[in-house]
């Protein structure tokens, strides 16, 4: 279970750019829940994920993971149980290292990074078998530097890498945004499969309303640091894209943009 309790966050405090963004923000996500999050640009989706993962300090409130208060826990410690794909495709992989090396690094998460061989040849076929279903031809580019791959290829690799080891939570920030429609579809199906197979508690931010409606068992819509739609179970199943679009329109009218 993951809880955000009474979170306060002000950006650039004490400057002219001061922005009180989250004020008494509360969210509770149950174990095994797959939550899709939508919301306009700047509505606070990435900020919320950063708070959960410890990438950003909070001014007040608590972050609780499986009944343990982790508000003070360092980001890298939190990530031991979290798999994460960033909005920016370059953040999930190492550009100067090969696919083989990147996957070896990822596979070792949770184990000591000691003086044993970094990339074990015998894992090669296994890595290739993970890459093949992406149908991006990455399995034939094992020794190519990741920096030379396209953004979409990198993002697909990043998704695989983030879920290679046992984790409890999966945090996805627009992980299909950089992908072509066909690949995006494939990655979404793969994501769903991984989430179900590994029973991951998942938060998926997306701008694709269809994905938000089709996938996941709960849907959140954010606006200006608040959750303005929160539907789960039967209610979520009955939701249609039109309904969400209407809400988007309402917001724009209300705030005049």
């Amino acid at each position, binding site marked *: 279970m993951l809880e955000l309790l009474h979170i306060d966050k002000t950006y650039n405090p004490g400057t002219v750019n001061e922005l009180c963004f989250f004020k008494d923000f509360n969210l509770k996500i149950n174990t095994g829940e797959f939550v899709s999050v939508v919301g306009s640009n700047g509505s606070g989706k990435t900020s919320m994920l950063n708070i959960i993962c410890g990438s950003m300090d909070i001014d007040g409130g608590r972050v609780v993971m499986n009944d343990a208060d982790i508000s003070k826990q360092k980001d890298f*410690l939190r990530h031991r149980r979290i798999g994460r794909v960033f909005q920016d495709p370059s953040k999930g*992989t190492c550009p100067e290292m090969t696919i083989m090396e990147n996957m*070896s690094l990822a596979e070792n998460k949770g184990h000591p990074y000691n003086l044993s061989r970094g990339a074990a040849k015998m894992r090669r076929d296994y890595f290739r078998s993970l890459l093949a279903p992406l149908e991006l031809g990455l399995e034939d580019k094992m020794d190519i530097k990741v920096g030379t791959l396209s953004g979409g290829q990198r993002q697909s690799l990043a998704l695989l890498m983030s879920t290679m080891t046992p984790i409890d939570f999966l945090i996805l920030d627009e992980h299909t945004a950089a992908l072509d429609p066909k690949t995006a579809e494939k990655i979404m199906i793969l994501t769903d499969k991984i989430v179900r197979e590994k029973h991951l508690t998942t938060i998926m931010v997306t701008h694709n309303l269809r994905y938000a409606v089709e996938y996941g068992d709960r849907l959140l819509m954010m606006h200006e640091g608040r959750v303005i739609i929160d539907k789960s179970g039967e209610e979520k199943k009955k939701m249609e894209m039109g309904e969400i679009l209407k809400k988007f329109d309402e917001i724009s009218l209300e705030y005049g943009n």
Partner: protein
Amino acid sequence: MTLIISVFEQGFIYAIMALGIYITYKILDFPDLTVDGSFPMGAAITAVMINAGIPAVLTLPVAFLAGGFVGMLTGVIHVKLHVRDLLSGIIMMTALYTVNLRIAGKANLPFYNQPTVFDNDAVNGFFPEGMRDFQTVIILLVITAVVKLLLDWYMGTKSGFLLRAVGNNDTLVTSLGVDKGRVRIAGLSIANALVTLGGCLFAQQQRYFDVTMGTGTMVIGLASVIIGTSLFRKVTFMKVTTAVILGSVIYKACVAVAIRLGLAASDMKLVTAVLFLIILVLSMDKKRKVAS
């Protein structure tokens, strides 16, 4: 002939130092000025130990470990106290000036008649009389090769992978559940250990310590790294470490030619700076061309 030998001797010595700078600059993306202090620190430790009659071989591990400690301090200043990278190095460099004087006891400490790793009963017995002139360069070749192979091996380990990752994309290191700060500290530690080892060998080849001998270490090392990596960029089968060693020898050859052409040794810092600027601009140009 002696000139060529001396180019290779100094080229190899500086290569070990340059390998350290390769770690900080290329792998960690951290311009570390600590090296201007840790290089002479290696020399100071060596001079004192040898004058005290301690076997010269022991200076190598002692210098290496001392350098590792100093690099760790730079890392702690940067990571834990959040001081900017360049400033952390400058602080350590400045502090080490005093430390080096304290270690040596004075600004200049020679040890002309003492045995060194290049000139002691054991190696003198091993090499035949006719090889005397090549003795130092051969020993240096062996030491440099060992250092290079060890570094290559380390870069292929899990720990080495993490080091490469932290300079490249430290967000990934965090995602892997590892403290990126500690990886950085370890990297700076290894780098300065190598630089200090270079200083240790330099002192034994020159047979003295001088408190100013570290000035420009970073620039010389960086020049070697950039010469090596840009010149041999296309040679895919060559390891970067080999390229850095060759870069260092080439750099020393350029300096030797400059001196041959009539420049005084005291002009060398200016020559180094100008040479470095040229190399930097040329290599940046290449990058820009690739990018556009």
